[in-house]
């Protein structure tokens, strides 16, 4: 069985982001980019499933401009067997378009599990996994915090982190799983694996090859920073506090 992992190249989690002067988006020039942390967790889970003997191959896929290949190389260095890069313009890759591309890739590769991060840290959409499951008509188990596979019955038992606690779901394979933070701790890319990764293939696809049209019906109008938190003031007496609460904050 093959496992396909979708990974995204985003602004590094630890970077302090700034909004571009023209308010069209976040500044990404000269800023450190790396693999989305949830995608790392997804890839780590795929590798563990393969190491446990439930799968034979892990394929990492990513879509976007040429720099995505760096992120795919990291995925290969972690241990993925192959990678696929879908060449697409950076702008306009909203979740529905990504889901359509993933559907096309699933038709090509025919994996038993499609595993993704629950959301990307740049847009926080949390939509791609759910959309692609809908397009493929596959069962989905999102916000996974534990995944246990059953080979003969061809199903996966997944613990999901939901608002009320943990929910355990059983899904038939093939299925879509999206990963949450507590699923695992991703491994580091060690030198022997980095060396092996140099010879692993990265296949390139163009949008036309997959026959996907990514015209989007979403348009980002403006991006602004949240308002800066106002400094607190120290009041000199209880009376002044009551006065401010009443007349300025209008809470009493």
């Amino acid at each position, binding site marked *: 069985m093959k496992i396909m992992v979708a990974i995204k190249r985003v602004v*590094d*989690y*630890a*970077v*302090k982001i700034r909004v571009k002067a023209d308010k069209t988006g976040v500044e990404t020039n*000269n*800023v*450190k980019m*790396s*693999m989305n*942390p949830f995608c*790392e967790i997804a890839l780590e889970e795929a590798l563990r499933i393969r190491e446990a003997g439930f799968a034979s191959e892990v394929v990492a896929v990513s879509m976007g401009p040429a720099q995505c290949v*760096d992120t795919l190389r*990291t995925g290969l*260095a*972690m241990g993925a067997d192959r990678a696929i890069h879908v060449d697409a313009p950076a702008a306009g890759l909203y979740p529905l378009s990504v889901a359509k591309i993933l559907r096309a890739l699933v038709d090509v590769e025919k994996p038993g599990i499609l595993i993704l991060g629950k959301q990307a840290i740049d847009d926080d959409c949390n939509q791609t996994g759910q959309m692609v499951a809908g397009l493929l008509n596959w069962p989905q188990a999102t916000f996974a915090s534990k995944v246990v596979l059953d080979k003969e019955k061809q199903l996966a038992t997944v613990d999901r982190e939901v608002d009320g606690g943990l929910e355990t779901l059983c899904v038939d394979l093939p299925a879509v799983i999206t990963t949450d933070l507590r699923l695992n*701790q991703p491994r*580091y*890319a*060690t*030198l*022997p694996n*980095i*060396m092996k990764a140099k010879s692993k293939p990265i296949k390139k696809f163009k949008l036309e090859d997959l026959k996907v049209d990514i015209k989007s019906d979403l348009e980002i109008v403006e991006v602004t920073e949240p308002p800066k938190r106002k400094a607190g003031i120290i009041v000199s007496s209880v009376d002044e506090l009551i006065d401010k609460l009443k007349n300025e904050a209008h809470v009493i």
Partner: protein
Amino acid sequence: MEKWRAITYTLLQHSLKTNFHHPINPNFRSLTRSSSTSGHTYAFGRTCERLKPMLAHEKWNIQPCVHPCMSHHPLVSTKIFSGNMCRIQCIYFASLTTKIQRNPLFSTINSDDISHFKKILGEKNVIQEEEKLDTANTDWMRKYKGSSKLMLQPRSTEEVSQILKYCNSRCLAVVPQGGNTGLVGGSVPVFDEVIINTGSMNSIISFDKVSGILVCEAGCILENLISFLDSRGFIMPLDLGAKGSCQIGGNVSTNAGGLRLVRYGSLHGTVLGLEAVLANGTVLDMLGTLRKDNTGYDLKHLFIGSEGSLGIISKVSILTPPKLSSVNLAFLACKDYFSCQKLLLEAKRRLGEILSAFEFLDSHALDLVLKHLDGVRNPLPPSMHNFYVLIETTGSDESSDKQKLEAFLIHSMEGGLISDGAIAQDISQASSFWHIREGVPEALMKAGAVYKYDLSLPVEKMYDLVEEMRIRLGSAADVVGYGHLGDSNLHLNISTPQYDDAILAQIEPFVYEWTSKHHGSISAEHGLGLMKADKIHYSKSPEAVQLMTSIKKLLDPNGILNPYKVLPPSLVS
């Protein structure tokens, strides 16, 4: 000489065992403070009745070593202290032979002094509360504890100047204190010196976005400066594990080294100017912001590294390098020390201008970190490696730097220099690698008592000392070696469950003599402070020390600035 060393030692042992665990005698206003993990004891009291029987018994004339400070009665062999203030302070673990007496020429604080300070600084900035004084009196390692009764927090250079002028006229000893993260006891009082804490002088005065020259007050915390500069595209030229607490004034006055010295050089090169306040209150304005200024003797270098003994630094002007976007970090394992050395040479040659840090730790250090710190995991699959190296590169081009680093590492691996390694793929992985190296001092503290040595040695010889110490101490202690391999700086740490004089005797003076024999420095970056105040002769010639003493006497004739430290007390008083 030898004989009375032995007596004082037994005296101490006696007093330790009996005195502070059972302070029954109400006359014995003992302020002895010691625990099994602290190495410092103070026997401070009016009458030392416990000691009397001991001393009387011995019939030695212990005149030279223990004498009342404000004495009216000379010490006689049987009748010792007749109700006068007698202060014996013994640093018994740092060196069995060191005995310091409070300089009788220093005055003690009285209520007039307190009101004078309150007038200069305001009520809030004159601190006399037990709790706050307790923290300020104890150093980070909890090895040294002073008994100061007063801490002052000036808010400006003018206030520092007024304080010092007054203290100088009254002959009150002072201790300049910043973040109190020093490791040689230089930032805490020895006796009752007034603590002058610069924490309130923490404003950034100016920053030139083009040249990167930052001018700020001495009390700015290093981490705050780093974040300030970060949003403007610059970084501080120094970085150390203590950055969350240490202040730039302290860094400059101790000439702190840190993790990036191999790339940006020492503070002697990056500090462009200083403003310092001398012992008599004179404000010495050397706060230039020029890269080049060859007009006269460059006085700021005297203050950089003087550990607060020549003047209190109040403002700093420092050149900050631009923040480069591409930072890569690799955590590597080597099978022996020789490979680490060769790796350093190769790194300097092949990574060249992008190399920004080269640190090493041995397997003992890594084991301690994994055992005592939370949330730390070994980046490499568990295997018996002997040495670990952390290499950081900083450059302007992400992909070419990464390629360069990968090519260098793969080449080294194929050549057998590295047995395994991992490259950090994002910033959080990089900080976890750094956490391992920066967490070694903390892990050592948690493991029990630690004897710390900071030595500059020729790279080839560095680890030989660690191995010799292992043989010397055997199973009594865990000898750990780590440090800035790129600067030939070894941090030799000996971890024991408790402080033990027998172990100390095996360590000192052997470590210092070994270092001296190989023409190394007994204090690469930590400074001399109190711990090594009388050890300077291991690394500096007598003529040099003599000149230093003359300079100290010139700038601080009353010796009120950070007394008993840096230079041997016998020379300075």
